[in-house]
């Protein structure tokens, strides 16, 4: 007993200009909504993809990240002897004692400097991170002043390409290779021999110890032992959790900023939709009277106008998403507040963001249309028919 869908659709089509203008308002909001979600998803994905659930990151107790952490050589050696640490090739433990230093490097094009993470690695570092792949050149030789740069560094920083030199730690370092670590944060790092870097930076301690668990379920046991050992002042986290924690603050900031923007914008769009729908109801008063006279119930009128407003929202949602999807072509580089280092990531559109954005646009359509639809449904037939 419903008024046909084509009635709602064609009424929108008939007043195309108003429809497009109103839908544009909603599209703008959906665009902002989707882009914030895409940004925080891109950030989360970048940082979470960086970790592997079988890996454990050990840092000094109380330090939020590797940057603030320091681990004495003796403590690192104790961690190495834990029975839960997996064995790799030739009986060596799958464990790397790493150094993390932040330096300033000038960007290509501009002379503006930005902070970059230098990671001192050991041979096992690469085995622990299978997602890191050499894409150009070769691996740096141990014991030399050779380094390799993440793809994102090579692209954006001066001196980051193969064969180029970078000066830091009072030495010149030659870039001999470029590695790609996909979307992960490693792509924004420079890797070199840990012992060489410790000397250059006059650092007597490691920043972190990373190891792979022989059995993933043994994590709680090893965590408890490490954190309870009176000789150690360390804490252990799964690598995935470690990176997720790092993205938390930034993601939260983006979420709060995005949601407050979206809420304010959406109020405007909802009021716009409401005005459009109220004027649609006013212009079609005699039509409403006619439909009621023919025998359509109040509910059918309500549904037809609500449908029209939902369609309006959907059109806005589709336009907004269409434009937001192009954001995926952009890469954002920003300072990660927690590591104070440069981090490159891109807007990521997931199915969840897709349907959330559409749902949001439908909600705007609904909220904007519900009062006008009730007004339409409540009209008195005789009075409505008198309007010509």
């Amino acid at each position, binding site marked *: *007993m*419903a*008024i*046909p869908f*084509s*009635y709602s659709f*064609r*009424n929108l*089509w*008939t007043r195309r200009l108003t429809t497009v203008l109103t839908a544009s308002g909603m599209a703008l909001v959906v665009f902002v909504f989707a882009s914030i979600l895409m940004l925080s998803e891109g950030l989360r994905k970048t940082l979470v993809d960086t970790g592997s659930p079988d890996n454990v990151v050990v840092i000094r107790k109380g330090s939020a990240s590797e940057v603030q952490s320091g681990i004495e050589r003796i403590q690192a050696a104790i961690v190495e002897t834990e029975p839960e640490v997996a064995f790799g090739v030739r009986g060596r433990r799958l464990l790397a004692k790493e150094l993390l230093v932040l330096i300033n490097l000038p960007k290509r094009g501009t002379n503006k400097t930005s902070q970059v993470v230098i990671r001192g690695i050991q041979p096992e570092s690469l085995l622990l991170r299978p997602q890191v792949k050499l894409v150009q050149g070769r691996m740096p030789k141990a014991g030399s002043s050779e380094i390799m740069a993440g793809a994102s560094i090579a692209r954006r920083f001066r001196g980051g390409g193969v064969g180029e030199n970078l000066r830091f730690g009072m030495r010149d370092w030659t870039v001999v290779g470029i590695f790609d670590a996909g979307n992960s944060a490693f792509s924004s790092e420079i890797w070199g021999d840990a012992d060489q870097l410790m000397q250059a930076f006059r650092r007597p301690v490691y920043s972190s110890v990373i190891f792979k668990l022989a059995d993933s379920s043994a994590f709680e046991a090893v965590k408890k032992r490490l954190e309870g050992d009176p000789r150690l002042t360390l804490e252990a986290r799964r690598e995935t959790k470690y990176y997720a924690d790092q993205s938390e603050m930034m993601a939260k900031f983006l979420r709060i900023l995005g949601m407050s923007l979206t809420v304010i914008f959406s109020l405007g769009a909802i009021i716009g939709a409401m005005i459009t729908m109220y004027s649609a109801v006013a212009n079609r008063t*005699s*039509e409403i*009277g*006619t*439909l*009621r*006279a*023919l*025998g*359509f*119930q*109040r509910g059918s009128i309500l549904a037809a106008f609500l449908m029209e407003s939902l369609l309006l929202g959907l059109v806005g949602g589709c336009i907004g998403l269409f434009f937001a999807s192009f954001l995926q072509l952009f890469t954002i580089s920003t300072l990660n507040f927690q590591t104070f280092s440069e981090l490159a990531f891109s807007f990521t559109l997931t199915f969840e963001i897709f349907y959330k954005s559409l749902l949001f646009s439908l909600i705007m359509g609904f909220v904007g249309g519900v009062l006008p639809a009730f007004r339409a449904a409540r009209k008195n*037939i*005789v009075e409505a*028919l008198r309007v*010509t």
Partner: protein
Amino acid sequence: MNQTKPPIVRIRNLSKSYRRGSQIIPVLEDITFDIPDGEFLALMGPSGSGKSTLLNLLAGIDSADTGSILINGVEITTLAETELARWRSLHVGFIFQFYNLIPVLTAFENVELPLLLTRLSRQERRAHVETALRVVGLADRMDHYPAQLSGGQQQRVAIARAVVTDPTILVADEPTGDLDRYSAGEILDLMDRLNRESGKTIIMVTHDPRAAEKAHVIRYLEKGELSDASQ
């Protein structure tokens, strides 16, 4: 005029008044009359005499203060709103002065509208709509939108919409009020044919003496009171 047929509409002691602020304005006062089945009745009278109100009451889109309206055995004054809407969809065909077609729907879809409230299948609906449009002579204009039709053609689509459900009564409020002489003549001929050939009971409000001539019976309403039948 055929008085031997049983009345299809029985109106008893019908009163209706409007409230304007604290003032109560009586529109219809104690009206009683019958309309036999197959009648073509014209209601005439000066503006404000209550003829449209009477028509609205008969059509079940307005409610009376007191009195009874029995149409084909159904007391419509006691029906609840949803039942009344359902009753209208089955038993009343509307013809309006300004046609009241839905501008975004084609002639076919406009005529199909009342059938959407029935249980007919898509094919059955199509067959009914095509028949109705053929009766009004617009079978070739099915896919035209109202704006693409002349006033007379629009009114014919509206008549097709009114008869497509084969209602018990047809109510027409100034059906020729917005038409030129020629188109008005066509519409009146069509209504006359529907009355003579299909036996439709038609109740028409009009100011137009030529329209009233087509009717079998003319009744005059003045100051809320119905004067005796005058042929």
